[in-house]
């Protein structure tokens, strides 16, 4: 059954641990990028939806740097991950009971990369993209993304 096989997938997929040293290979963020925080993403937050802030609209298409936490990924290695404002205790990809927070940013990397531990603050630099887009591989719908992303570990929480 679908629900059960999801759980089995989760066990199998997550056994591949990522050596922390691999993270050192990640390139540091570029200095030129404008900084953007999670608090600055939305102008209004309501039950019937969010509206992007003027800052987000102004920075669309440009290089920005954002700090946050990598959500527990579905696979040990992939070309995209979800950046969250606070560390996620749950993996919404893997648990049928967990769900994403509202303020998430999807990061697309140029190439597959091993990931940062969940409680590690990272800085991601990439081109800010705004607007609905459905990932053809995973079906994951995102409204705000960093493409051509690179990330560096800033420190442990």
């Amino acid at each position: 059954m679908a629900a059960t096989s999801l759980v089995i997938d989760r066990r199998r997929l997550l056994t591949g641990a990522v050596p922390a040293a691999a993270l050192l290979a990640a390139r540091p963020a570029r200095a030129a990028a404008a900084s953007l925080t999670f608090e600055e993403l939305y102008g209004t937050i309501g039950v019937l939806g969010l509206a992007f802030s003027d800052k987000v609209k102004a920075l669309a298409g440009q290089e920005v740097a954002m700090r946050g936490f990598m959500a527990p990924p579905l696979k040990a290695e992939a070309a995209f991950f979800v950046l969250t404002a606070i560390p996620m205790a749950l993996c919404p990809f893997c648990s049928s009971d967990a769900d994403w927070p509202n303020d998430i940013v999807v990061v697309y990397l140029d190439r597959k990369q091993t990931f940062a531990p969940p409680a590690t603050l990272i800085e991601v630099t990439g081109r800010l993209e705004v607007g609905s887009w459905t990932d053809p591989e995973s079906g994951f719908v995102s409204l705000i993304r960093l493409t051509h992303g690179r990330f560096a570990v800033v420190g442990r929480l």
Partner: protein
Amino acid sequence: MRSRLLALAASVALSGAADAATVMPLDRATILVGSPFDFKVEFEAKVKADEVRITVNGEDYRTALGAGTGFVEVETDKDGKELGSAVLLRGVRIAKPGRYTVEATAGNDRWSVTWEVFGTADAPKARNIIFLLGDGLSVAHRTAARLMAKGMTGGKANGRLAMDDLDRMAFIGTSATDAVATDSANTMSAYMTGHKTAVNALGVYADRTPASLDDPRVETFAEAVRRQTRKSVGLVVTSEIEDATPAAVVAHTRRRADKAEIVEMLFSVKPEVILGGGSAYFLPRAVPGSKRRDDKDFIALFREAGYALATDRDELQAIAGRDRLLGLFHPGNLDYALDRMQLKKGTVGKFPRQPGLVEMTRAALDSLSRNPDGFFLMVEGSCIDKASHPLDWERAVFDTIEFDQAVAVARQFQAAHPDTLVVVTGDHTHGMSVIGTINDDLPGDEMREKVGTYAAAGFPNYEDRDGDGYPDRVDVSRRLALFGTNGPDHYETFRPKLDGPFEPALKTQGGTYVANDKYKDVPGAVLVKGNIPKDEESGVHAVDDVVLQAAGPGAEGFKGYMEESDVYRVLADAFALGATRTVANSPAGQASAGEASAGKASAGKTPSK
């Protein structure tokens, strides 16, 4: 965890008859007379259509169930591997109560099950049912709520909870068809359909095919109410309205996480009152904050269907009394009662005007009671469970007190409308106990020395000076000592979490959970090693029985030990849902909800994974 259970189940099956077909509904199923259900036989091998012999009390199934052959040549798993042939008939009904033995054979495959088809009284006992469910509500939650809200002197409670005065009770078994352990999907599904099912499943038996929306369906309580009566239906929750408990009143899916589809099922049944959280699954994907993967706008669809919309407590007041209410007060779950009322943590800063369970219950009753034919209202104290998982016991107890105040509202309504059955229960329990007090004034360097046990416990010193029924503070100097029986590695702080909901553990890159360092430096915090698998992020449900209490017409049906599926039978009897009648003056063209949604499923809806 579940993969291990599956392996175990498989080995047990193999040691028995090698070629046992599976018949759904399962052996010992109890089925409401006249209710539509899907019939499925899964054969272990690929067989030919003319080899299939299925009888119901000796009569060929095609005649007995009044449908076609339903033969499926072969079913496959997600990798395309053949699983065997099957027979699947949608929406069959049995018109007469009694015992029905189904025998299925094909080649070497054979299996036999017996169902009990039950009738009900011809005349309803109750006009209204208010079914209040505390998610995860355990005995310790009640005890702690009473001690915290009412206090105690000389060993006697200084006051009673509203749920303390319900006069009938039963112990309820909560286990699933696939495990002694259970979740809120299969438990509420058993209450709301009369059929037990598997963990994560709602309104279906769990079949072997990978799609989550094609499993054999059984009728939900809301669908039965629609089919047999002109009563209204209401749902009031503090979780997402697509969460397992409210979903079980209307939905059919093997996978409770199909929340976008559950909104569609909610729309197809159209309960007159829908109040809770979960707006993110109502918004089309282009709207920031949406969690849908399509362009359907359910806010617009419900409005077009005549619903008045509210998104905060003021708007709820403004639309109270209208015939159809859609109140969505949060994109996800509403905040905990403790955060909404006192601490203002969680997301209260972003959503400051969320109504509470009591206001929502009042608004629902105001609206539903205008239907002279009566109503079924389900009220869930959803976050008792949501706080108990992360071992945040003060939040769990505060939500229990709020739930009890909603019970008080239901009891007041019942006093004015004695033709109302009030049922108060949980869906499963948590491993939580009250063991004494934690007294900051006791001597000792370590916090464990301040845990008062036996006579040293004394009595807690919570106060309710404003008389609102809640303790004015939870961080008093002599507070309840609440401990869990299980959990991940975490720091025990011996104190309420005033800075925000507790997050006991965080996930590592290896997929295991480790104690959240955030609490390491809380004075007196000690590391508690987990006692459940390391890939569990929080405490888990307990298998302990639930206590159900009830009052009003029909409540005498609750007694002794009952399965959750037996509770359905008492509810169905109270409304005479098995009576041989139809809605005499039902509007033309209004198909029963069960048929409408079954039809939709057979139209080839793509399941989500």
